[in-house]
């Protein structure tokens, strides 16, 4: 406030070098108005949308603002892709999730880090008839669904050789064919 007539009327902006500041009339609060590139916040302590870090080191060592690190599993046209401080990814795509979009979502399996989106996370598609408790989840890596007794295949969609009646929903039953009259 330059109108008070004291030597303390004008004070330096509490902002990083080069930034200007302003006083919010209602609250008398000082805010930096021209934070260095990539930073924002009252004191330039935050990263812009799409970046993360701790530019003033308010919660530990100084971490310059860097672009969200989400394993190429975010869309640059989206907003709010990661937490501005921790970098936690918030808008994973291609059926991925996890802090860095580095895992497959529940109900999907594969390699979230594959370079081609089609090779990333595929749906488990577990067979309703052959899977324990009609589960829709599978092993994140192999995609193996949890099969009922004597049920085979990754998606539990077929009986093991020598077994039948997947439709029962309780696993497959032994064929019990007479070895003398059967061809194999």
């Amino acid at each position, binding site marked *: 406030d330059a109108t008070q007539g004291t030597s303390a009327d004008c004070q330096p902006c509490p902002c990083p070098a080069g930034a*200007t500041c*302003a*006083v*919010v*009339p*209602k609250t008398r609060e000082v*805010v*930096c*108005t*021209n*934070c260095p*590139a*990539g930073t*924002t*916040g*009252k004191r330039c302590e*935050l990263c*812009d*949308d*799409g970046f993360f870090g701790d530019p003033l080191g308010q919660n530990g060592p100084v971490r310059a603002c860097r672009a969200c690190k989400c394993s190429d599993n975010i*869309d640059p*046209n*989206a*907003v*709010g892709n990661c937490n*501005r401080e921790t970098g936690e990814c*918030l*808008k994973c795509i291609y059926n991925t999730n996890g802090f860095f979009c580095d895992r497959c979502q529940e109900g999907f399996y594969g390699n979230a880090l594959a370079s081609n989106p089609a090779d990333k996370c595929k749906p488990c598609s577990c067979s309703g008839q052959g899977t324990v408790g009609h589960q829709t989840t599978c092993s994140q890596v192999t995609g193996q669904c949890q099969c009922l007794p004597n049920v085979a295949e990754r998606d539990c969609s077929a009986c093991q050789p020598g077994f039948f009646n997947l439709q029962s929903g309780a696993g497959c039953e032994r064929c019990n064919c007479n070895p003398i009259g059967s061809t194999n």
Partner: protein
Amino acid sequence: PRPDVDALPPGTHLLFAQSGRIEHVPLEGYDMNKDGAKAVLYLPAKVVIGVAYDCVEKMVYWTEITSPSISRASIQGGEPTAVISSNLGSPEGVAIDHLGRLMFWTDSLKDHIAVASLDGSQRRVIVDSGLINPRAIIADPPNGNLYWADWNRDAPKIETSHMDGSNRRVLVKDDLGLPNALTYDSQSSLLCWADAGTHKLECMHPGRGDRSQILEGIQYPFGITSLGKNMYYTDWKRNAVVVVDRYAGRESNTFQPQKQTKLYGITTAYAQCPAGQNYCAGN
């Protein structure tokens, strides 16, 4: 510089969001008075995405994604007040029905469109299926229509419905890329969109369905608003507001704020409400 956050002078302005602030540029006729540009509101901890204007109470409304909320403040000098702050995922576009005193918004995490009274009460989801990346939303209260765009890369589309979500229809689905920005010009009854994928600015008459290209080769639009002969879009490439003369079919001016960071939603703050009667007033 001295305090920056004051009441706006009378007249028509552009309001746009730039991460931690809402800025304004006064319009003289259809031209930007760049020297008169300054921040309306500092919201330093926030990432503001959508902005909309209520010409009746002269309030600016905005969505914010860091602590997801929808807030408002008088542009005649008022405190920011949150009107919705619970149960939001990633609120993006916001639209005001100044006649019905309602607000509509898109949520890109919940993948729905919702409505509430301007004070946040009477909240309801009106569209909750078939949405992947809903962003821009526009209300046309005199005709009782709502328009929105979904930039889903696999199947981008522009849709319409009545203002209660009924009579939903796809208006455009071919030759779209990333239709981020949508605006409706009531004078010409044209719905126009700026596409960051096809880099085109196009319009269509929603009733007749005829589509026309205004301009191609635009850069990276995020938001758009229209007034008379001009359209104004925010550009992620140049971090600027770009003016397009729709009849000349060319970019006629740009405004680049001092701070170099992304610009998001943009809206026109009219000096007076446009003429028009509420479609629902007849009910």
